[in-house]
């Protein structure tokens, strides 16, 4: 299938050239809606970058028709009236799709999630740790609803900008916000941690739309998304701090010793203790370990009798176990990413 996909792309590129002119795909985008789109050379927004990558894969050039998206109907009319060919950033959920009979929707190219943003020091690592904290949210968003449903102390703001300003000013302990806002904020503000809330029920798959009369373009976009999924798209989203690769890890790289310790931890231990080292029902939360490095070494070497914790002596050298203790210490203080 992968080979077939490439072949299709090659054919498209060839046909574009044989026509004697480069094909042009026009995107409708808001000129001032970062991090989604912006009329800027340096930071055009990830929706524009994704659209450009798709166009490139199809052997086409991307043109942009700038139009404010604040009023949905006006914005979509640009597409209906053929001032552009594609609209990015639309939620692929029935309540949105069902009353847009004039549109065809693509496959999703990313999943928008809710994230918790909090200070690195003393901040929040998980949804459960919001308990007892003051949590900022934007009114009438999925994050607002989530925090309300869990019965946390919640403070409501009118928009994302006000909300994040409140976080910087320590008006709230943490905020729950959409991943594009939270990710962008964290890439620009060192000292804050982003934790994705993994909850399939609250995931928002995001895709593009074209006119219903343009099914060929929809198919081509789907093909392109399929091809870009493994590398190009994750790279774009990583630059905007969206997705699972935390921007903080890059900001404070580990020493070679701790990098090795992380590999050992992830390959030998994470299946039970979790990638985040916070444990599972049958394995301890290692971030809460209170003992010394010697204690850690002794337990890992000998195991814990009567539990699933098995002895590792003779398999993981003592020096590596000690390095792992130091890696977990750093992980627990939030000084490094997972």
């Amino acid at each position, binding site marked *: 299938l992968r080979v077939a996909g490439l072949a299709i792309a090659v054919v498209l590129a060839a046909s574009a050239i044989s026509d004697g002119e480069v094909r042009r795909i026009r995107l409708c985008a808001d000129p001032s809606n970062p991090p989604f789109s912006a009329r800027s050379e340096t930071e055009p927004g990830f929706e524009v970058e994704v659209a450009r990558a798709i166009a490139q894969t199809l052997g086409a050039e991307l043109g942009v028709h700038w139009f404010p998206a604040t009023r949905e109907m006006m914005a979509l009319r640009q597409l209906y009236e053929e001032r552009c060919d594609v609209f990015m950033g639309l939620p692929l959920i029935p309540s949105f799709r069902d009353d847009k009979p004039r549109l065809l929707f693509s496959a999703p190219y990313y999943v928008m999630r809710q994230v918790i943003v909090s200070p690195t020091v003393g901040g929040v690592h998980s949804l459960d740790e919001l308990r007892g904290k003051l949590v900022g949210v934007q009114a009438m968003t999925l994050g607002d609803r989530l925090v309300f449903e869990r019965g946390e102390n919640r403070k409501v703001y009118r928009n994302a900008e006000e909300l994040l300003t409140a976080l910087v000013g320590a008006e709230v302990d943490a905020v729950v916000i959409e991943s594009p806002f939270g990710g962008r904020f964290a890439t620009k503000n060192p000292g804050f941690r982003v934790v994705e809330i993994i909850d399939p029920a609250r995931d928002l798959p995001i895709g593009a739309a074209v006119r219903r009369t343009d099914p060929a373009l929809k198919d081509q976009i789907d093909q392109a998304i399929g091809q870009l999924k493994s590398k190009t798209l*994750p790279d774009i989203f990583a630059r905007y701090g969206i997705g*699972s690769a935390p921007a903080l890890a890059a900001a404070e790289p580990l020493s070679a010793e701790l990098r090795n310790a992380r590999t050992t931890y992830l390959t030998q231990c994470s299946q039970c203790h979790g990638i985040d080292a916070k444990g*599972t*029902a049958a394995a301890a939360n290692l971030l809460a370990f209170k003992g010394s490095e010697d204690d850690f070494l002794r337990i890992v070497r000998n195991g814990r009798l*009567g539990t*699933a914790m098995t002895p590792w002596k003779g398999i993981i050298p003592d020096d590596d176990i000690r390095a792992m203790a130091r890696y977990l210490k750093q992980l627990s203080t939030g000084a490094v990413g997972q």
Partner: protein
Amino acid sequence: MVTVSRLCLIALAILSFTLTALPARAADVTDDRLLNADRDPANWLMYNRTYSGWRYSPLDQITPANITKLVPKWIFSGGALGEQQMTPVVNDGVMFTTSTALAYNRVHAINARTGELLWKHERKMPEDVGALVRVIPHNRGVALHNDNVIFGTLDAYLVALEAKTGKPVWETKIADHTEGYFVSQAPMVVKGKVIVGIAGPGEMGPRGFVEAFDAKTGKSQWRWYSIPAAGEPGSETWVADTWKIGGGAVWHSGTYDPATNLLYFGTGNPAPWIADMRRGDNLYTMSAVALDLDTGKLKWHHQYLANDAWDYDTVAEHHVVDVVRNGQTHQAVVQANKLGYVYTLDRVTGKFLSAAPFVKSITWGKPDPVTGKGVENPGMRPKMGGPPVEVCPSLLGGTGWQPKVYSPKSGYLFIPSNEFCMRYAYVSDLTYKKGQLFTGVTAEHFSTMEQAGVLRAFDVSQNKVVWEWTNRTPLISHTLATAGNLVFQGTAEGKVVAVDAASGQELWSFNLGSPQSGGIISFAVDGKQYIAVVAGGTLRSQVWFGKEPKWAHATKVNWSDIVVVFGLSD
């Protein structure tokens, strides 16, 4: 108590004692009895009951009409804190079970009428076994041959005991346990040969193999490697020296067809799990293989998935079934595996006949309808050090190691299946270190469905699912079909249920108090039918469920290594 000093020389202690005499003299388990096990309804003489791998009991006293009278008759405690994945075997009123922990392999002989312990053999394990054994010490049961009980160990020995007394007869070192080799499967004895596939390689590195031993002496007769050495046919599917640490465990019991004289095995995933580190198709991992019983020579192979990226072992048993399609009968083997499809292959030639999905949660790709080779969806392979990829099924598989069950009465394959996915990533760097896990991944399992565990009845001739029974957690538990029109199914919550074999309607359930994780079998003593259910838990259900909130209730269930035997109330 008898201490065998000979074994102390290799730092192993053996404890063996006889408590009472056998209730009645059990007949020897001859080659003929094993070949005709299907015509021996009272007994369950081998892991899958018959060479065909069906796990179907011809006993029919217990039926939908009287199932409400099914009550526990006795409970046996194995006393081990570890994985309990064993399927008991029964010969003339004597049941043989195993219990396993990191410190030992145990074998028990039990009076199948009363649950009374007849003898116990305990073999102490050395401390330098590999990481996989340390994390999931487990054993799936014994083989019977003549007057011996034969089992494999966590330190990669094959051991024969006297069935009447538990006294050691012979033992053979199969491979070096410090490299991570061990035996988890119940051996299968065919025509005087003990057939064993090795566990460990898929997660630990060294090459997998199947080996045959003389059942009388334990001497090796042939060994077939699942990965060809440099220069051998198929070695071109491995880059440089990657074949030396390429995995390909054969950790699940095989099946056998007397008519073709072929053994059918499924092979496991290549190592490490990071596909980029071993480019090429990686033959004969992820394959069905047919081996000549007499010579161990490869007769044919069919690779389900080349260069596996997700730990989707295709080790599940290949049921020997004659499949009728469009009025034509095919001598076939049928395998439902982790990839989420039921594959039908010609068992004489290995030719691919069909593949049909039995789970809905499949995103990795699909088999090519003509060749049967896996065709991947783009973007499903993680990149080293990159973000996790969400891919379905999870590495525990659309169906995992828990055996599938075939009923010749209905032509249904009963599949304990799973609707779940994983967030799956490759670490940024990985080096082979002897004894350590050589996987290189992180994985978290989740399900978008409320009911992740689905017992499915799959009509192998029509190639489609005919009914479903669902459970909240995945079914990392066993299944049994009986001629009494019943299907029994265990759950990680610790239940065993009986459903109507024709409709899937739940008729009966019993709370075992411990995750159902070992075999479910049926046998008869003195003309009365019994159902034996093994419980005790697996790391898979207890720890790997950890990140999915929907399954939290099951992770709270305690582990206890027990066999519960049910019969109709008098």
